[in-house]
């Protein structure tokens, strides 16, 4: 049985105008389809457009041309409010620098996305956040401030925060970039297992081929173009 399609990019380009009014083509003719449960690894060196691609996939930015659909709906026609709602409900972000909110405990950080939910999710935010932290093995650190946590623990809090609203797609940008190799492996294993368990699609953008190798589909971003790889990237 084929999994449901979540995101589709067709001939997507992203161009920005530089101060000297010349065009900079960051992405050119990108095609990509993301289905439920997919684990996609995208590798590429710095400056190849990885972040721009993640911005587009996360509905934080819009393509200059081409089509980007979310569950069959052209995102070009989405209002900002609808895009925000999809982002909050169906997308989870894991950042390289963790991006935990300063001054808030691990629990408050995981509760933060639930502040934009409604109904049961909002009113039961403390319990949901606590359960998610427990899932990532941080039940004993719920009241810890980010600065008292190790890098691996901070990233696990960030993963819990990305998963707390049960998103359909998790976007991870260099999730192990600020961690040592061993901790990075542990964090990736956790992310992989958690998304596998929830059935969410996981898109990991990295320059680390070891991290990319954990995905089941592999792509390389080079010169703004996305190439599918037959095997594990070298």
């Amino acid at each position: 049985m084929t999994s449901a399609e979540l995101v589709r990019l067709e001939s997507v380009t992203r161009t920005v105008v530089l101060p000297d009014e010349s065009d900079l083509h960051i992405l050119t003719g990108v095609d990509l389809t993301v289905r439920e449960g997919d684990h996609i690894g995208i590798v590429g060196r710095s400056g190849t457009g990885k972040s721009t691609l993640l911005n587009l996939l996360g509905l934080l930015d819009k393509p200059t041309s081409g089509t980007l659909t979310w569950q069959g709906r052209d995102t070009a026609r989405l209002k900002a409010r609808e895009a925000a709602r999809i982002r909050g409900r169906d997308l989870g972000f894991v950042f390289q620098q963790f991006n935990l909110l300063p001054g808030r405990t691990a629990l408050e950080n995981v509760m933060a996305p639930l502040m934009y939910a409604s109904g049961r999710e909002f009113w039961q935010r403390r319990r949901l956040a606590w359960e998610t932290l427990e899932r990532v093995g941080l039940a004993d650190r719920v009241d810890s401030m980010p600065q008292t946590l190790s890098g691996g623990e901070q990233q696990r809090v960030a993963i819990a925060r990305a998963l707390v609203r049960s998103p359909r797609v998790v976007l991870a940008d260099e999730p192990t970039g600020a961690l040592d190799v061993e901790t990075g492996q542990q964090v990736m294993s956790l992310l992989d297992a958690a998304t596998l368990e929830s059935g969410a699609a996981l898109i990991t953008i990295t320059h680390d081929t070891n991290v990319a190798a954990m995905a089941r589909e592999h792509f390389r971003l080079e010169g703004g173009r996305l190439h599918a790889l037959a095997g594990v990237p070298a």
Partner: protein
Amino acid sequence: MSQRLDRAATGFVAAVVEAWQELRIHKLRVLLSLVGVMIAVASLTAAMAAAAIAKQVVTEQYEHDGRPALLGVWAHPMGEGVPPLPEVVRPAFFTAAEKLDIRYASMTSSMGIVTSHAGLERQAEIRIVDPAYATLHRVVPSRGRWLEEADAQNMSPAVVVGERLLRKLGLAGADLPVTIELGGTIPVTATVVGATPKGFSGSTVFMLADAYQHWFGADQPLMDAQYELWVPPKRARQLSAEARRVIAAELPGYQVDVSRMDYLAYGDEDPLREVAIVVSVIGGVILLLGALSLLNVALVTIQQRVREVGIRRSFGATTGRVFFSVLMESVVATVVAGAVGVMLAVALISNPWVAKRLIDHVDDVPAFPFEAALLGLAVSVGVGALTGVIPALVAARVKIVDAIRF
């Protein structure tokens, strides 16, 4: 529809929760930035409250000369050298008052008199009045009671005496009633049934007109008197004309003049309006300075929180929600500061030392003006909203992509 309502309700609650979290996390910054607002609100509220209390004090003092609307009546015989005999004018005045259905009417006349007690002798003023005089002039005895109609029948004339005169006669704090002697050659023993406050009538002795006529009328007859009517301010003009006509009809051959005598006689303008305006302007300037410092800190802070705004946008925060959350941070903070400011103002104005100086000699001791407290809170909400708008706009216009920088 219900889903929309649910979303709006949770959005509002969440924005307040977020605002509170933000204030809790940045306690020191918030506290420092809000000191100005807190002092401004406290100053404004205290100034408004003090002005309201001062107004009460001044109003009471003005009303000792006559409560609005007080009509003064003068009646003089038209023939030269003929005195306006009170025994003729007074009955005519009260008949006219009854015809006009004016309940509060009094004669008032005064002259010098010698008072004495236990060998102490003091010159004083005796004011001859009717029982309604107390209402007309807001006379509230500090001890004992005011004069009543039945006092005219007493075997010893009842009097109400100023506390200052009682002290001079060695009767400071004496239990009432006590007796004093009135008049020089053949003194009359009068019974002091009440005392008026120090700040009011000093060394005055109040006595009913009938009692005066009985005890002193033969030796020291009243030669002249003024008559007063207390009427509703809105009908003062009309009743003034009617009183003149009716009294003139009761007193053929008399020239009758009626005119308004209270402090609002020349218009309903609040005599303390200018003071209130000056106080408000000073409070406004203090508030403006507090608001500017708050805005300054808020703008600097929001620039430092661009990344956080970006992260929140990635969680699904809409532009409107970011705007509202930042605005609420400012409003919640100023409301807290305003509440503290109002409490400070209440504590200051209600402080016994301050209260004694503000409300000494006031008959109706005013409570802390509720409207001043409400104004303080409303102003703090307003300042919060106004100073929150600009940082909220800055936060709402943050580009997510720039803010997050993956």
